[in-house]
């Protein structure tokens, strides 16, 4: 007996996608395997590591803890959507490049989305707030030192680009 499929309309990075998925399809898998947006990574599938973090209506959420069928009526932003329309790096991405905020790059998309939302809410974080902004994401490579620097650098870049 085949599993029931549900028609799902997902709005990702401003583009509307129509796809059919079983109810149990995790949003992380739908993004990666159905929409081929493989920038969102899956590190633990139990909501702890944060690699799969995407923005749902602007707020960071774990895409491994949301079913694709439950994500309709939302606007989703993935790491692919953080790049500027002209293809250049967005400010958080640029800050990571400048500060060596990544090594293997696997956890990076989750940090980028989380920080993007964090700086939208708090454009001038203190040093402690910059650390707190990334406190729910695991990285096994960098020891976080340069990621914190990247948060602070990104705040400056956003300020520069908007002024």
């Amino acid at each position: 007996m085949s599993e029931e499929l549900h028609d799902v309309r997902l709005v990702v990075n401003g583009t509307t996608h129509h796809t059919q998925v079983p109810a149990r399809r995790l949003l992380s898998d739908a993004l990666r395997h159905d929409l081929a947006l493989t920038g969102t990574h899956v590190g633990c599938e139990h909501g702890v590591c944060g690699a799969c973090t995407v923005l749902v209506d602007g707020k960071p959420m774990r895409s491994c803890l949301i079913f694709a069928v439950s994500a309709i009526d939302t606007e989703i932003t993935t790491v692919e959507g953080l790049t500027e329309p002209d293809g250049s790096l967005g400010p958080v991405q640029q800050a990571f490049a400048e500060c060596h905020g990544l090594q293997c790059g696997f956890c990076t998309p989750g940090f980028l989305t989380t920080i993007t939302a964090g700086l939208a809410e708090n454009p001038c974080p203190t040093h402690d707030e910059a650390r707190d902004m990334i406190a729910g994401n695991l990285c096994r490579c960098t020891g976080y030192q340069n990621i914190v620097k990247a948060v602070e650098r990104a705040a400056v870049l956003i300020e520069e680009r908007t002024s």
Partner: protein
Amino acid sequence: MKPAPFAYRRPDTLQQALADLAGEPDAKVLAGGQSLVPLLSMRLAAPALLVDINGLPGLAEIVVTDAGVRVGALARHADVLSSSEARRVQPLLAMALQHVAHATIRNRGTTVGSIVHADAAAEMPVVLTLLGGSVDVESTAGPRTIPAEELFLGPLESSLRPDEIALSAYFPALPEGAGVAFDEIARRHGDYALCGVAALVRLEGDRVVEARAGYVSVNELPTVLDLTADLAGVVDEASLAASAETAVAQLEPDGDIHATPEYRAQLVRVLTSRVLRAAYEDACERNAR
């Protein structure tokens, strides 16, 4: 780590949701899913039907009156945490909520969901119990209100029937003369606490007339102790220490891979004293205003 198959309904009226639930004894309600989805992915739970209530109208509201805070079933932890009205009427909510997991989880996870998940390692069941709150539920048989003290039956086991949906949780306002505090110790920031304590201290004049503490992660159920007797005289090192010893004696904390029973008892001791003091100081400060 992928969930087993399940049927899925996303009703847009409460009546339909209740009917869906009534039609399938092995059904689960999906709200934020931050506790449920990991259980499904690890196949520790495999319900036949998920009823997704995220499409139901009106459930995301946080209604604040002078009497208390009513949190709707779709209000996310982050919404409650950022509600200045809720904070004004019952400051313990925000104090505890900032310890609930990480911000990203709080963006999706619901306060009501966390309560009816009935995990003794979670903060909000203890807060609800300490404050003498309640949960409003409904089934096709009609609505009912479950007081906090009747809500928690065992580890991950609440007194909700399978056909009932929790629609809201009600947290009474801070009583006149009272102060509250919350603190917890976790292995890592954002982890489930090794031990967490919520406390409420009420003064009449300078005198403590009520001192109660609720315990996170100490026993199988959210537990609240009345420690008024120890603090009814003066609140000082000695009386706080006495209340801490009372708590340790009554709780008999459990051990696990992160903490021996003796260590957890020590955390009960330290946090009881620390949080009661903070609640007392909070009460004094509020009374001074």
